[in-house]
């Protein structure tokens, strides 16, 4: 038996936890469509895990709308720094300001926050029990941002943006590594973020898939106005995508500059990093 219009409505509400019931007439919450890149300032940030001093006096300024990469060898604290920006870690000392607001300030000051952030994790961190479409629409449904019909359209649009149109019904276990990353990006984009962070986006990806991913991120940069922070040890990827790059070595920022400046830098840590990632074929001049 095919359910009628009312039957379908009830079915949708049962499936998605009454998300759709609070919107009468309007399709989306008024602030959903607004997206603006945010400025970030990090001041004297320090973090230790037991005896291991991971981040040492980090100072950074990231402009609104900028694509900023943090590069460096594995284990130098790049991901830890990223986790501080999205408040998954608390600093031992120092401050992080987003649009001028200290993100670790008291809750009353924090209430002034008017930006959205999302993060693409190294492992993609997709929810295995949900389909691709449910992963992408999770935030929209949980926050009751839109009507169910509008949510479905947003899911379709965001998947199209990352080249996965029509894959809504697949389970995440059916996806390749590159596809998982792209679904994770679509999930992040579904909330129309003002700030998006990528943690090692090319980790475990082959060079061709990495290149595809770079194109997806470039494409987003042109279409969406947001601030992007990329943490990567993939030098070429970072140089190709970024407006500016910072090199993190042994917990300290050793250099900040445009991709050209980083490439031309004489800083020994950067020279070593560039050499080891571009040394070419053994025996070749």
């Amino acid at each position, binding site marked *: 038996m095919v359910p009628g219009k009312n039957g379908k409505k009830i079915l949708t509400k*049962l499936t998605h*936890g009454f998300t759709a019931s609070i919107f009468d007439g309007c399709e989306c919450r008024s602030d959903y469509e607004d997206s603006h890149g945010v400025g970030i300032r990090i001041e004297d940030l320090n973090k230790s895990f037991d005896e291991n001093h991971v981040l040492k006096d980090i100072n950074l300024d990231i402009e609104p709308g900028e694509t900023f990469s943090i590069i460096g060898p594995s284990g130098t604290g790049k991901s830890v720094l990223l986790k501080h920006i999205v408040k998954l870690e608390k600093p031992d000392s120092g401050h992080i300001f987003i649009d001028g607001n200290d993100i670790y300030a008291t809750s009353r000051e924090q209430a002034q926050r008017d930006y959205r*952030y*999302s993060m693409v*994790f190294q*492992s993609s961190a997709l*929810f295995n029990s949900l389909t691709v479409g449910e992963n992408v629409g*999770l935030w929209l449904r*949980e926050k009751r941002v839109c009507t169910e019909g509008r949510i479905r359209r947003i899911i379709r649009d965001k998947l199209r943006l990352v080249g996965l149109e029509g894959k809504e019904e697949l389970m995440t276990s059916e996806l390749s590594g590159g596809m998982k990353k792209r679904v994770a990006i679509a999930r992040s984009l579904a909330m129309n973020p003002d700030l998006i962070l990528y943690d090692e986006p090319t980790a475990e990806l082959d060079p061709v898939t990495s290149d595809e991913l770079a194109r997806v991120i470039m494409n987003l940069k042109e279409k969406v106005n947001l601030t992007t922070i990329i943490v990567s040890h993939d030098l070429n990827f970072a140089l190709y995508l970024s407006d500016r790059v910072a090199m993190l070595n042994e917990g300290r920022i050793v250099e900040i500059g445009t991709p050209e400046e980083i490439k031309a830098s004489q800083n020994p840590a950067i020279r070593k990093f560039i050499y080891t990632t571009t040394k070419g074929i053994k025996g070749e001049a």
Partner: protein
Amino acid sequence: MFERIGRKILGAAQATGEMVALLVETVYYFKAAPRNLPAIFRQMYEIGVGTMPIASLAALFVGMVLALQTGAELALYGTQEVIGAIVGLSMVKELGPVMTSLLVAGRIGSAMAAEVGAMEVYEEIDALKTLEINPVRYLAMPRLLACLFAVPALVVFATVIGIAGGALVSDVNPAINVPYNVYYDNMIRALDYKEIFKGLLKATVFGGIIAQVGCYVGFKTSGGARGIGQSTTRAVVIAFLLIFIADYFLTRLML
């Protein structure tokens, strides 16, 4: 040595405090239950329907063994008519809630710890946080609510099966030879609503313990696949112990 003992005591105190804090937060999010109905129903189905076959089978044999052991002894003194009351009371007050809860703890508590633990290890919980979705509201609340309803329902079902198993043995076994109607009359006379309420109260508390322990251990998981395995075992062991401890105190309180 004293330092080690002290550290263990402090660790246990900290875990208790954290578990209570998790319980308070989970209960606070009960208000969000209406919009999490699909997740709650999914968990209830998994706990109730998924555990029903094994709980039925276990209850059937427990009821049968109880009738066999007790009935044979009672027959020596010619008082086997009271077998219905003994099996009924035992199943309703003690065996039904405890045995069923132990089965749920083994089957569902471990699965909860493994699922939440895997989400913790593979950064899915961090992803929830960055999506501004509270993991306690999203993961622990539906599980706790589902356990609070599904475990008592399962206990009722298992108890009925256990009593039926006892009746079958009492009637069929020539050494006992108590017909169904005598078994039933004796049982009804011994059981009142208070006894049934006590059994259901126990089942509700045990259900809460299973969900809380599963989620707490899951949230505290670290260390990859090995950590997930350890969490699964830990959840079952802790839930078993807490069920036995709670059982004693509840029985003592409700005497």
